[in-house]
Structure formats: C-alpha cells, structure tokens
C-alpha cells in the first residue's frame, strides 16, 4: 500500500494531479492508515499509467473514464475499445484538416501583405480579418445528428 506521495513518485505525477484524478473518479484509495491517510494499491499505479498513456493518445479524462469502465466490464470486448480508438483517430484527423485550412488561410493573408512597411492602418492582414468572412472553409464538423 502506498500513500499519495509515494504513489505520485511511482507514477511520476504530482500529488495535485492525483487529487484531481480522485475527484474525477478515476482512482480511489483502497484503504486508510491508522492515522487516517488514504492508501492506494498497485492497481492504482497501473491505472495512472493507463491514464497518462491514454492522454498521450488524445483521449480526454471523460473518455478515459469510459475506457477504464470498459476495462473492468466482463462483457466488453476489444472491438469496443478499438471503435473508441478509431473515433479518436477520426477526431484528430478532422482537427488536422481544420488546422491545415487555417494555415492555408494564413498563407493567403501573409502573401497578400506584400509591403510590410505600410502604415498599420493600411495593413491588408488587419483589413482582411475585419471583413466578415475569409476565403477557405475552416469549419470543424462536430459530431451531431441532423434530421
């Protein structure tokens, strides 16, 4: 059994992070010491490593909670986890596409501003940003049902 400090050192996270994970229901102490300190077991170390790794793959804490629930569910299969991983990949690819469109829109603005010594009042970038819309669609599609 580990105290929060020991657990933090083992999992290389801060005590505050662990308290936050606990507040979010991602980990919980398995016992309390005679002095009333919360104690954690080896499974908590595994859970924290799981959380950190999943965060590195782009999963939010809410999604990680679902993955942890799946991990403990008897009827769940690898296909369920795989579907979540594929959905995360689609979200990331979607963001990459949106970011590329933003980058392209910036390229256009930069190219349009040929004279960098012009007074700021005549700055083409500022003028373009003031216009209601820019060319180039940078709308990020969020998952929604349209009926």
């Amino acid at each position: 059994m580990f105290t929060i400090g020991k657990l933090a050192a083992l999992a290389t996270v801060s005590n505050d992070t662990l308290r936050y994970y606990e507040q979010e229901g991602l980990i919980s102490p398995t016992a309390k010491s005679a002095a009333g300190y919360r104690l954690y077991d080896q499974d908590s170390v595994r859970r924290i490593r799981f959380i950190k790794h999943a965060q590195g793959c782009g999963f939010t804490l809410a999604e990680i909670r679902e993955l942890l629930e799946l991990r403990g569910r008897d009827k769940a299969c690898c296909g369920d986890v795989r579907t979540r991983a594929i959905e995360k990949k689609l979200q990331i690819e979607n963001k990459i596409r949106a970011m590329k469109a933003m980058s392209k829109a910036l390229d256009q603005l930069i190219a349009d501003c040929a004279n960098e010594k012009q007074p700021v009042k005549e700055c083409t970038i500022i003028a373009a940003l003031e216009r209601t819309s820019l060319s180039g669609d940078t709308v990020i599609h969020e998952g929604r049902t349209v009926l």
Partner: protein
Amino acid sequence: MKVELFYSPGCSACLERQAELRAAAQAAIGNVEWREVNVLDSVDQAVGLGVVTLPSIVIDGELVFTSIPTPKQLRKALIKRNRGRA
C-alpha cells in the same frame, strides 16, 4: 438515393443493426444505393464528411446520423429527403 453506413470493424452494435437498417431503407424508398463502408479503408472520405463517431450514416453525401438510428428513424429521414427531391 445513396446511403452510406460508416462502421468500425468489430463494432457489435453496427453488425447487429446493419441488415435491419438496410432492409428498412430498401422498404422506405425503392431507389436506394446502400453501402457499408469500413471506416479504416476510407478515413479521408469519412473525415471529409465529418464522421467522428461510429457508426454514422451519410445520405447523399450529407452526414445525417452520428449514432445508430432505429429503422423507424432511418425510414423517416429517407422518406423526408425523397419527398424533398420530388
């Protein structure tokens, strides 16, 4: 009308409902072109259509369902679109 169901291989919810939804679509409108698309084979197409959750249903190039509908919901959506076309 073209209906594309984007699914993840191994998704039990998708497999259970596919046949049922296909039958509902075909019963709702006569001229339905039904495609089941493994999203891993068509990531670019899926991203272009805004598919981020699975399964998703795209009708004539428009993302209409981002989760699995009931056959009744699909039927209703198809009939409504078919009427709009006429």
